[in-house]
């Protein structure tokens, strides 16, 4: 078996076994439901604009599982083995980010069309929102690896992490939310789509190198 594929499947298995898949998905559902229910009680109908709640919930639930990306491997020495292996650290980071995306962002995205119905968004628009998320969420997964690497071995990392990782999601969130809102109003701005794709690809391109540098800092 190809070693890269083996590592990828190992990562996916590890994160599904650790119940983080179930927890982050349920967190997503709970946040969206709580927001919608409480808004309805105050007479504010959850409408097309509340698609922003969807994105914020997605970013928050991605944050929940961030500190697990490297922490377990760092504790049990798997990361040492990765450092010594002939496969470059950057490749490992890419595989980890892909595994994080598959186990955290993908399930939430699959739930999106169902959640959109509760907000009064029609099915056609929800498919467009799914496309926007498809563009944006890989960048969120890749940026998450930076945060996970920065707080390796820190006891207080679950408090420290959101403080500097949530602001780095901003470019993706600004574009994602605005485009999703436009899409629900049947406005399709192809320029914005392309720029968001560019930002997403830029983040994906630079983060493996940054994360690898940060991990090497922990081992010097």
């Amino acid at each position, binding site marked *: 078996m190809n070693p890269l594929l083996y590592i990828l499947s190992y990562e996916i298995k590890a994160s599904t076994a650790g119940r983080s898949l179930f927890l982050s998905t349920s967190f997503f559902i709970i946040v969206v439901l709580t927001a919608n229910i409480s808004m309805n009680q105050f007479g504010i109908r959850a409408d097309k604009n509340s698609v922003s709640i969807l994105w914020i919930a997605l970013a928050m639930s991605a944050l929940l599982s961030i500190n697990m990306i490297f922490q377990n491997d760092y504790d049990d020495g798997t990361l040492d083995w990765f450092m010594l292996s002939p496969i470059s650290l950057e490749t490992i980071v890419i595989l980890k980010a892909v595994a994080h995306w598959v186990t955290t962002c993908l399930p939430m995205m699959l739930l999106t069309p169902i959640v959109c119905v509760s907000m009064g968004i029609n099915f056609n628009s929800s498919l467009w929102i799914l496309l926007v998320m498809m563009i944006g969420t890989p960048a969120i997964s890749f940026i998450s690896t930076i945060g996970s690497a*920065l707080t390796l071995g820190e006891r207080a990392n679950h408090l420290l992490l959101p*403080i*500097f990782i949530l602001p*780095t999601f*901003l470019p993706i969130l600004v*574009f994602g939310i605005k485009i999703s809102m436009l899409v629900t109003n049947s406005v399709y701005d192809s320029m914005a789509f392309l720029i968001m794709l560019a930002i997403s690809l830029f983040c994906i391109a630079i983060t493996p190198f*940054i994360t690898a540098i940060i991990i090497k800092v922990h081992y*010097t």
Partner: protein
Amino acid sequence: MHKNSRSLWEFANPKRFVSIANKLIPWLTICTVLSMSVGIFWGVFFTPNDYRQGAAVKIIYIHVPSAFLAINIYIMMLIASVIWLIRRHHVSLLAAKAAAPIGLTMTLVAILTGAIWGKPIWGTYWAWDPRMTSFAILLMFYIGYISIWSAMEYNEKVGDLSALLCIIGSIFALLSRYAVIFWNQGLHQGASMSLDKEENISNVFYLPLLVCLLGFVSLFFTLLLIRTRTEIRIKRTTSLLRMN
């Protein structure tokens, strides 16, 4: 490097830095007090009111210098962090660490004065205009940088992490800024004191503003020297204690 050559890298020696700082601090303090009091008195009491904004224009004597510092302190931290990563000078890292709270305060001052000014002029304390959003973004990255220092003990590893965080922060702060500008062109007036634009404010306001700017910059340098000296002393104390 030559023994007798006088260059910027002399500051990299902590002992030399402290002795130079000790000499500079009194002069800088005098410069700060003089230029700030002269600039603000001149600006507040001896300039005419703006024909559109009335007396509210007098807030620019603190708003513009603090906003100028807020952005430039982050750039200074970025440069200091890069110097630390390349040349491993502890003073550079400690200067970046010492500058962050000053930058945070200046960002808060700029936001506060802007909000108070905005209420009578724009009719609102806060609007998500690109320039104000940029300051909110800047505030978040300052908080992130300070929190990584407050959460961990000082050592070289944390120094590397904070320097990397500073670089990552500047990349994402710029990205966020332009993402915001893409959607929202904003209601701020054009630059009020750049050198290449014609729509600069008139000399009546410009000269006292320059004096205030000088005052704020020397305030920054005074505080920076004191804080960096403090950080160097903390480092020396801990290393002396560790030798026992």
